[in-house]
């Protein structure tokens, strides 16, 4: 029943009863029932949800009835409501306004099949068995020849090979991709299957035809890659429950690569069940083995082997270097100033001297705006007007003073961006292995995370004082900000230095989505888990292998104990090759179990895989800006160099204008006014690396020690 929204109308004719039954799951609007006089009108409506008002109109002359049944349509309680109709004279219409939503509904289920068998059959002598192979849904029993082999290995696609002796023409390419199943069966003396156990579900990868023997050999796979490749990253996360960061792994990875990457961070393997269902199995062996292979289970003579892991393949230390690079926004407010000496001191030594004009000072002040500085405010002081100073008649008319500068203070601010790189050194180590194997077997890895440069307009931020994020203090203050007039110097004016500009402001751009510090810490933990998993993986490469009669219930998810006079051990099964030789009537399997361990006796310490603490925030208070100086030339003691010299202080360079006793024209300066913004230390502007190679955070990993006994 399709979902529908609309008017539901029942029509009835005169003299006939109108009867209808609808079973909507919800009613939100209009349903109209039309009835005529002279006939009964009966309608039954069973909504599960009623969201609208229901109105029935009936006519006089005939009793009308309608029943609206509330509640579940199929199951559950019903709440019945019978409506009394308003009988309107001459009316012949019963109208019920409803809107129906016709919804799909149903129950969903799945068949659960329980196979119960007598396990002694796998040890029966003789074991009556057969193998059922279906190709594209067709049982190949009559055509099977040779050996059917299924190879299941931890983390890899399960494969199957079988051969048939076909008849008639062969369209060999038609078989490619066709579904294949393999079931191992216990049969009775009549050949009837008693128990059928699936060992492979997949599809044909390559069919090969041998014209000499007239045999087609089918190589089949369970399509692990194809099935995993169809999963979304979210689904893979739910399945694997590992770690994945785009700063540790390829951010453009496809689903298969993504799964492999995430699996490298957890001690688990992903493969498909015999029914082709994805499953993830922990490497850790269970405390109690699922199966035991010993004399009772007929381990084939001389089939047990032990293979020791190659030392060169073992890693017991992973050195991690992790870098986090981000922009650090900085801002500084400061000032530059200059003033003439006090008038008292000037008139004591000079008769006449030059004074800079405001226009001269202004052109210099405007130049401060280059180099990234912003001018927030400029304050001038004019020369004192005519007065008697220390017995000297100082002459300066107000009209002249207005054009001159006696002192100036400029408040400036700058924002700039510094690139900061934090570097962390971590060492993930299995100390037991280092002790046991006589040294560190290392793997080095470096990961880096750069905050995307395009995520922040650095130059635009630097150029605009108002653009967020802004410093915590105001940078656009024009009044009530430095400089302040020097107090208690009534005979002149000057400016104090900018003692209240305070420390630099900074803010780290570690809040850019996708590049936040939490993202870095997640990447760091991903790398730590990957390192731990590498150590665990390389310590489980020793294995015990044995050949036993085929037991189709043994799978990669199981833990097994192999117990023989020479070699005994317990571990997770990592590899099974089921072999069903139809011609010889022999069904065996080769089982490999992984032996995890270092050989170390004693407790191992396991540290939490936590990110190290971040560096302390920077604090930097710039030196107090120095006020500009005043120097007069044309004086015998004048020492400052002439123009074009670079190493000269801020301030005013003028000349005495009288020709008194120690006047020396040869030492006259080129009159100029200099103001320069204070330099910012390179350590605050150049790329900064925060690291301490002498401090390495050590994380200890404990390797599980599986049981292993070798007897000479």
């Amino acid at each position, binding site marked *: 029943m399709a979902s529908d929204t609309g008017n539901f109308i029942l029509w009835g004719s005169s003299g006939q009863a109108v009867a209808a039954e609808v079973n909507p799951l919800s009613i939100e609007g209009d349903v109209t029932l039309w009835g005529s006089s002279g006939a009964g009108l009966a309608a039954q409506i069973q909504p599960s949800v009623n969201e609208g008002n229901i109105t029935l109109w009936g006519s006089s002359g005939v009793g009308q009835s309608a029943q609206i049944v509330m509640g579940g349509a199929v199951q559950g309680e019903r709440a019945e409501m019978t409506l009394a109709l308003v009988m309107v004279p001459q009316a012949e219409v019963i109208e019920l306004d409803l809107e129906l939503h016709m919804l799909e*509904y149903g129950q969903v*289920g799945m068949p659960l099949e329980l196979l119960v068998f007598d*396990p*002694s059959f796998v040890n029966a002598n003789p074991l009556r068995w057969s193998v059922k192979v279906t190709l594209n849904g067709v049982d190949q029993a009559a055509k099977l020849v040779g050996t059917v082999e299924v190879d299941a290995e931890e983390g890899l696609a399960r494969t199957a090979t079988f051969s048939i002796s076909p008849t008639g023409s062969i369209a060999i390419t038609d078989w490619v991709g066709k579904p294949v199943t393999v079931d191992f069966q216990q049969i009775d003396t009549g050949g009837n299957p008693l128990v059928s156990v699936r060992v492979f579900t997949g599809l044909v990868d390559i069919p090969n035809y041998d014209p000499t023997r007239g045999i087609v050999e089918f190589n089949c796979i369970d399509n692990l890659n194809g099935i995993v490749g169809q999963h979304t990253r979210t*689904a893979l996360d739910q*399945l694997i429950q590992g770690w994945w960061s785009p700063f540790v792994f390829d951010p453009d990875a496809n689903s298969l690569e993504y799964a492999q990457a995430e699996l490298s961070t957890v001690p688990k393997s992903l493969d498909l069940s015999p029914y082709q269902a994805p499953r993830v199995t922990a490497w850790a062996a269970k405390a109690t083995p699922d199966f035991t292979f010993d004399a009772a289970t007929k381990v084939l003579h001389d089939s047990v082997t032990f293979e020791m892991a190659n030392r060169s393949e073992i890693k017991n230390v992973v050195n991690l270097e992790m870098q986090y690079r981000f922009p650090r926004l900085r801002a500084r407010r400061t000032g530059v100033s200059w003033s003439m000496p006090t008038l008292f001191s000037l008139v004591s030594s000079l008769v006449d001297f030059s004074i800079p004009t405001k226009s001269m000072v202004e052109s210099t002040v405007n130049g401060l705006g280059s180099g990234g500085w912003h001018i927030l405010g400029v304050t001038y002081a004019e020369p004192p007007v005519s007065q008697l100073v220390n017995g000297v008649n100082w002459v300066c008319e107000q009209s002249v003073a207005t054009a001159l500068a006696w002192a100036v203070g400029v408040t400036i601010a700058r924002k700039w961006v510094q690139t900061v790189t934090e570097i962390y050194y971590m060492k993930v180590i299995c100390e037991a292995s280092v002790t046991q194997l006589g040294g560190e077997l290392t793997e080095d890895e470096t990961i880096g995370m750069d905050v995307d440069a395009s995520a922040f307009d650095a130059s635009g931020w630097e150029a605009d004082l108002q653009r967020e994020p802004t410093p915590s203090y105001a940078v656009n203050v024009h009044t009530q900000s430095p400089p302040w007039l020097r107090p208690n110097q009534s005979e002149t004016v000057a400016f104090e230095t900018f003692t209240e500009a305070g420390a630099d402001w900074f803010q780290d751009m570690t809040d850019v989505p996708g590049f936040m510090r939490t993202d870095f810490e997640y990447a760091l933990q991903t790398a730590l888990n990957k390192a731990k998993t590498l150590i665990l993986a390389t310590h489980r490469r020793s294995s015990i292998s044995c050949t036993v009669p085929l037991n189709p219930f043994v799978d990669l998810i199981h833990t097994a104990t192999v117990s023989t006079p020479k070699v005994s051990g317990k571990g997770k099964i990592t590899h099974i090759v089921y072999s069903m030789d139809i011609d010889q009537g022999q069904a065996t399997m080769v089982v490999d179990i992984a032996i995890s361990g270092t050989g170390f006796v004693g407790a191992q310490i396991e540290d939490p895989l936590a990110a190290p603490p971040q560096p302390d925030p920077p604090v930097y208070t710039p030196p107090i800006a120095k006020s500009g100086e005043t120097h007069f030339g044309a004086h015998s003691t004048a020492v400052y160099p002439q123009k074009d010299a670079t190493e000269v202080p801020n301030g005013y360079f003028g000349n005495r204008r009288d020709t008194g006793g120690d006047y020396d024209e040869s030492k006259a300066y080129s009159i100029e006014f200099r103001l320069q913004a204070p330099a910012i230390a390179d350590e605050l502007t150049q790329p900064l690396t925060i690291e301490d190679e002498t401090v390495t955070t050590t994380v200890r990993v404990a390797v599980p020690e599986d049981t292993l006994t070798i007897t000479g």
Partner: protein
Amino acid sequence: MAISLGFFSDAALTTPVATLTFIHATDDSLPFVKQRVYLGSPNGAKTYQAASNPGVDDIQVELFDPNMGDGFNTTHVKLAGTELGLDSAVAGDPYVIGPTINGGSGNAEEVWIQVIDTNLGNGTYNMTPRTNLVAEF
């Protein structure tokens, strides 16, 4: 047309469960395996609620025994939302999910199933874990 809610073998909701097979040995020598399936719909535009009272009643997974009397009863099967939940689950009880299941693979509900000791003889037995009546919105 049937609703698109279903049981899947993967969280991505790409592979519907054909048959969920459990294997037991008559001597209980095999472990009582716990299996996980996913209940959900790949159609992210749909939501599902109990038809009995949508949005109020819970959707639940219950057990239906199609062959009563064969010895394999609902009390041999446990249902839970987590693997650990199976330990405390009461065999035969439904697993209550909640009033709504949203479509989309990210909203798949895990359903864990375990068949416990049955003392059954050789043979194949059937059960049907299924939802109550669910409406698709």
